[in-house]
């Protein structure tokens, strides 16, 4: 059943490599001096012993493995020969995750769209074996005490709004799903070091460009492979993106995020988010009596928060989530007049729910980690024989928990486009095919990024009087039912165009 082939350095491959690097010396020399020192030379002129793949996935993070799984489970792509390249030992570990371990601070809020993507591939059953926490309510408020919004799953006729899962659980589930499939796949425990995209097999007397028919990949361990399509799922500092010459647009926020796991006395079924003068703090349920904290603030404060002792840190967190920084908002007077009363006919059920105070944190349950925040978008997602997915194509503020969901959306879309290409006998590295993936995902991702960046800008700076408008916006979001539904369904990945669609 398990047909994963682990590529641990094989002598035969090294001979092939040596021969090859002799032929195209200047291209390869840079990347694997160590193989040159083996001093073994074998005389062949063919490229026959260089393995050829349909798809080479560079980066086996959550998004890269999700693509492999998706390809493995679709009828028209399951026959593809796939290479997965990543030196991350987690790919080889094959181990299990112990339920007794406290939750890892790196978690993702997966949306209903992601959940159905996982279910479609048969990966969700592995999530169910591990810790995960559904939440059906969300409360957003700010330090001014002027407004608050409560969302509930019932507003959009759903059972849940989302589910919080540790990244390592998502990763492990996808790996299990991939291992279980019958797809021909080879894992290379190495990193990509060079990429030749205008390479042509048997190109003796043909002018190269229109005939370049494979990409050639050089790996850090000296391995060489060919692939019709190279997928860059190698994260925000993507090497594939750089080697393909794809430029990015983006900026850093003058803020860092501190993340950790905390414990409280009661179970939590709600996602909480409060906007403070210095930035937002979020408390996400992660199962049992644990929650996850993502707290954005300026880098100096973040450094202090990380190094202060546990008691001080817990005090700071509890203040940030309760009375600190400003008063609680007033719960809406039921049926009362007020600024927005004319909209009352259209209110959603949860609009009348009173403001609640989040559970009190009693214990720090993990180390505290600090990450810089940035927004980055690749100017194109594809070039000939290359497609970028996940953080390699875009990174966003972790605030809205959308980062990996956008990546899963990419993996799902790219695998569908590849399947459409296979259906009509296309070369799957053809740019015209890959552009279909790009046009589908770019629009969706840019819209999401604009919303998140707007959020970030609106809430990270103290605009004084603008806070009143912000509070009005909260009230508005709470009362204008269709708009609120749009916000929820957009945040849960079900809608293409945000807000006023």
């Amino acid at each position, binding site marked *: 059943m398990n047909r994963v082939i682990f590529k641990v350095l094989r002598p035969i491959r090294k001979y092939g490599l040596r021969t090859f690097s002799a032929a195209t010396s200047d291209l390869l020399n840079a990347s694997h001096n160590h193989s040159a020192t083996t001093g073994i030379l074998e005389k062949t002129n063919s490229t026959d012993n260089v393995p050829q793949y349909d798809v080479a996935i560079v980066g086996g993070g959550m998004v890269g493995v999700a693509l492999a799984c998706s390809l493995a489970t679709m009828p028209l792509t399951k026959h593809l020969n796939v290479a997965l390249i990543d030196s991350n030992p987690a790919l080889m570990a094959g181990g299990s995750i112990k339920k007794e371990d406290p939750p890892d601070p790196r978690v993702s809020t997966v949306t209903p769209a992601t959940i159905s993507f996982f279910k479609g591939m048969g990966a969700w059953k592995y999530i169910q074996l591990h810790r995960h926490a559904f939440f059906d309510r969300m409360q957003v408020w700010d330090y001014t005490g002027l407004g608050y919004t409560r969302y509930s799953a019932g507003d959009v006729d759903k059972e849940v709004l989302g589910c919080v899962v540790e990244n390592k659980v998502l990763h492990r589930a996808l790996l299990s799903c991939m291992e279980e499939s019958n797809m021909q796949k080879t894992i290379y425990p190495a990193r990509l070091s060079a990429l030749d995209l205008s390479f042509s097999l048997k190109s003796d007397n043909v002018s190269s460009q*229109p005939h370049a028919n494979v990409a050639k990949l050089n790996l850090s361990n000296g391995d060489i492979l060919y692939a019709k399509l190279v997928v860059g799922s190698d994260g925000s500092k993507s090497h594939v993106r750089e080697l393909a010459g794809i430029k990015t647009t983006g900026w850093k926020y003058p803020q860092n995020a501190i993340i950790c796991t905390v414990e409280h006395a009661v179970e939590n079924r709600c996602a909480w988010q409060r906007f403070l003068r210095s930035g937002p703090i979020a408390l996400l349920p992660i199962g049992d009596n644990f929650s996850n904290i993502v707290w954005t603030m300026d880098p100096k404060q973040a450094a202090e928060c990380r190094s202060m002792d546990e008691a001080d840190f817990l005090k700071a967190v509890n203040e940030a989530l309760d009375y600190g920084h400003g008063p609680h908002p007033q719960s809406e007077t039921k049926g009362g007049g007020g600024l927005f009363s004319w909209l009352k006919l259209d209110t959603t059920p949860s609009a009348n729910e009173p403001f609640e105070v989040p559970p009190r944190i009693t214990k720090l349950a993990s180390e505290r980690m600090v990450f810089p925040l940035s927004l980055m978008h690749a100017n194109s997602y594809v070039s000939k024989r290359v497609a970028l997915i996940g953080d390699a194509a875009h990174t966003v503020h972790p605030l809205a928990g959308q980062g990996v969901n956008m990546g899963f959306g990419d993996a799902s879309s790219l695998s569908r486009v590849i399947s459409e290409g296979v259906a*009509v006998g296309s070369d799957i590295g053809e740019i*015209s095919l890959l552009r279909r993936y790009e046009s589908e995902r770019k629009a969706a991702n840019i819209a999401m990024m604009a919303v998140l960046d707007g959020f970030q800008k609106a809430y990270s700076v103290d605009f004084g009087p603008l806070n009143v408008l912000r509070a009005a916006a909260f009230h508005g979001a709470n009362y204008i039912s269709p708009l609120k539904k749009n916000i929820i369904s957009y945040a849960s990945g079900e809608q293409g165009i945000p807000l006023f669609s």
Partner: protein
Amino acid sequence: MASKLLLSQLRTLTNLTYRRFINPEFICPLRPELLIGSRTYSDAPHLPPVDPVPSPIIGDNPLRKTKISSSLNQAELAKFSAISETWWDAEGPFKPLHAMNPTRLAFIRSTLCRHFGKDPYCAKPFEGLKFLDVGCGGGILSEPLARMGATVTGVDAVDKNIKIARLHADLDPVTSSIDYLCTTAEKLVEEKRKFDAVFALEVIEHVADPAEFCKSLSALTVSNGATVVSTINRSIRAYATAIVAAEYILHWLPKGTHDWSSFLTPEELVLILQRASISVQEIAGFVYNPLTGKWFLSDDIGVNFIAYGAKIDE
């Protein structure tokens, strides 16, 4: 009488084609100006009632007096020879063929999976079938057909095209199995070759005698096999889009690539295929959306169209 008979036969076609045929031009197929005009085949005016078995009187043109007629039109071939280097440049003169390819292959996949009873959820549904691509050019159609599992033979009258096609197909182990030959459909008929499906996409408008050419396609198809033909309609709109827009305004195609007068209407194509024992089962149009730059299948057969027919059991 003839027109009544025709209509009853056409009812067996899909709705969309049927609908299109109810136009005066078609109900009156003997209109001489429609068929003589500048048609290059001379049998048209003597159109007998359509008969599934081709009658021997048809096609008494001078070429047939020689043992095998030739479909070659030297002027047309010279045009292709001149630009053969550019077959695989997706932005070059053959850009429209590259852009149209996924769309026409989607049509082929769905009609032929049904025709041959193959599983459409299979990556290589045409495994075990022998396909012939007549006028294959650089292999833009042959290669995807091979990737879809077919055993493909590609033929073209221009030797340079065959050389380019061979080189390109050799780059990929899957397509290197394609058998490319510089020959014509007539010669293969003479050699008594038979294929499960025969394709002539965007070729018939370039051949000397379309009716004879269709007979060759038919002769190469096994009983109950399939034949697929695509071409440009001889409509004012096709003239505007395919010739003026593609050749002159957009400069996709070198000027003079198409000779409007040699185009066939869907009605004429159905007719000459019928007389060659191929009964057209489905016709679809390709429509180009200039805003998205994409082609899609539609029931608008006003400009580009593709027809799939079944070889009548003899």
